[in-house]
């Protein structure tokens, strides 16, 4: 195994090297393969021969040579098949030079993030390509993290790269008018990576810490590149404040422990302090977006010394604002819990009744789990048991199923 220090260095350099090679020679798709091969060569050679004096320069040189070779055989094949590699110059490439002034000097890694999260790609492709091209993960590692066969992930990444190529997107920052929408797409991809790791929709483990760590690493990177963007800060804070509870979130047998029952002394105090500082600094600046609001809610939970001391009225108020900026049934579900904690279980159950007709959430296990919880609070164990059981049947991961089944069983003999 390569030592973790060298691996970190390679992962950090990966997007810089790809950026430099694509900026110089174009061919995003082939360059990406060339960089992966250069990274592989480094991981084999450096432990034995030592890290070169200029590791970034070494990787760019090796990747450029490899790109020449790959293009060489690609073009020879195309000529054999009489298929000339031609593409119509996109209209935006003919933009006047002055238009480029504001984009000059943009960080290559940032441009790569925008390219990988290009709207021409499906979310699954955006995620896979971001992890490979910006995260520097191998296809095998990404396939493992998403529990799909490597061949499936290889096809997904290759389709994604074809999508970038076909989109004709140049290696530059998005036009100023598109920036907000394109940044929202990048944030969404990082959020999905985090969620996939934290919630782990499928499989035996409740959370996959590697994806969580990678999402936080990429969010930190983006925050370094765009320190003044409130939503970037909000997303990083949200990840830190959520992940801070990870040590207490699972019991000794990998079972899920609900927040109210978690041993708060096991929460990561340093991550909470960092997350709180980030969100406290971001909130007063400009418009407050959904990631900042979610981070603020997570901060209120994390700062409560005990579950009973939680400032539910403040959480309820934050959910109300959040619902106004991003209407979403999962947010409504959380809002119902907050309302129940402030105004009593029946008020929460009334809100849930309205959600039962929302087809986006009606069959989701989370709706039934919350209903079970509120019915239990309301003193109706029989109905609560039935709701927990329905939730258990619909839960996607084994730990969630076990947890919900245990909740149901606990109420069974009353």
């Amino acid at each position: 195994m390569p030592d973790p220090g060298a691996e970190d260095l390679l992962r950090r350099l990966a997007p810089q090297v790809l950026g430099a090679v694509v900026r110089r020679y174009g061919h995003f798709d082939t360059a990406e393969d060339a960089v992966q091969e250069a990274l592989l060569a480094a991981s084999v050679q450096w432990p034995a021969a030592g890290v070169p004096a200029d590791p970034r320069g070494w990787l760019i040189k090796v990747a450029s040579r490899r790109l020449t070779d790959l293009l060489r055989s690609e073009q020879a094949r195309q000529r054999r098949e009489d298929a000339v590699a031609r593409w119509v110059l996109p209209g935006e490439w003919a933009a006047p030079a002055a238009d480029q002034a504001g984009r000059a000097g943009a960080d290559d890694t940032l441009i790569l993030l925008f390219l990988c999260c290009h709207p021409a790609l499906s979310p699954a492709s955006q995620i896979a390509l971001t992890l490979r091209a910006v995260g520097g993960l191998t296809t095998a590692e990404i396939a493992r993290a998403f529990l799909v066969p490597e061949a499936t992930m290889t096809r997904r990444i290759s389709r994604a790269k074809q999508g970038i190529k076909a989109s004709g997107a140049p290696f530059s920052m998005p036009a100023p008018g598109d920036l907000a929408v394109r940044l929202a797409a990048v944030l969404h991809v990082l959020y999905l990576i985090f969620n996939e790791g934290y919630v782990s929709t499928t499989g035996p483990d409740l959370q996959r810490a590697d994806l969580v760590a990678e999402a936080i690493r990429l969010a930190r990177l983006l925050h370094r590149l765009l320190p003044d963007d409130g939503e970037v800060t909000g997303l990083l804070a949200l990840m830190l404040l959520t992940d801070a509870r990870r040590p207490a979130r699972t019991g000794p047998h990998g079972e899920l422990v609900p927040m109210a029952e978690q041993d708060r002394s096991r929460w990561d105090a340093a991550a909470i302090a960092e997350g709180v500082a980030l969100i406290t600094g971001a909130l007063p600046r400009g418009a407050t977006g959904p990631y900042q609001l979610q981070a603020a809610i997570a901060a209120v939970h994390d700062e409560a010394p005990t579950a009973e001391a939680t400032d539910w009225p403040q959480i309820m108020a934050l959910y109300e604002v959040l619902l106004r900026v991003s209407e979403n049934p999962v947010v409504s579900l959380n809002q119902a819990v907050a309302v129940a904690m402030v105004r009593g279980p029946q008020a929460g159950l009334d809100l849930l009744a309205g959600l039962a007709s929302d087809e986006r959430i009606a069959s989701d296990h989370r709706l039934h789990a919350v209903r079970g919880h509120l019915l239990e609070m309301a003193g109706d164990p029989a109905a609560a048991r039935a709701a927990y059981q329905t939730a258990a049947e619909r839960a996607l991961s084994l730990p969630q199923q076990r947890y919900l089944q245990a909740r149901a069983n606990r109420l069974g003999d009353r």
Partner: protein
Amino acid sequence: MKYMILLYGSQQDYDALTGKAVPGKPAWAPADFAAMGAFMAEFSRDLAESGELVETRGLTAPVHARRLQLIQGAPVVTDGPYAETQEVLAGYWIVDCESFDRATQVAGRLAQCPGPAGAAADAVIDVRPVAESRDELEV
């Protein structure tokens, strides 16, 4: 008077330079490549010292070329437009010499460039007068 000295090579020549086996071309060993580099550096340094060098550049491998053409009115890009045996511009010097004959003499020194036997067998170097103004182009 300015002249351009043009040096040609095919993708296969570039391949041979990196030590790859190319049918019909001698492969370059690292020592051959180093000797060529030293010769070229000295050649350009001498021109700079005599005050005749305006500029010199080498071009990357032909596979990296993009060709733009209008096809049915639209600008179309072709990646790697050259066949691998096609001789294309590989590098150039712009020199400022007293005469065409002096510029040709300068280019002639390139014939002494070291390399593996047979490497220069089909090498071609062109010398072309640079137009000093638009007038010179209007006949």
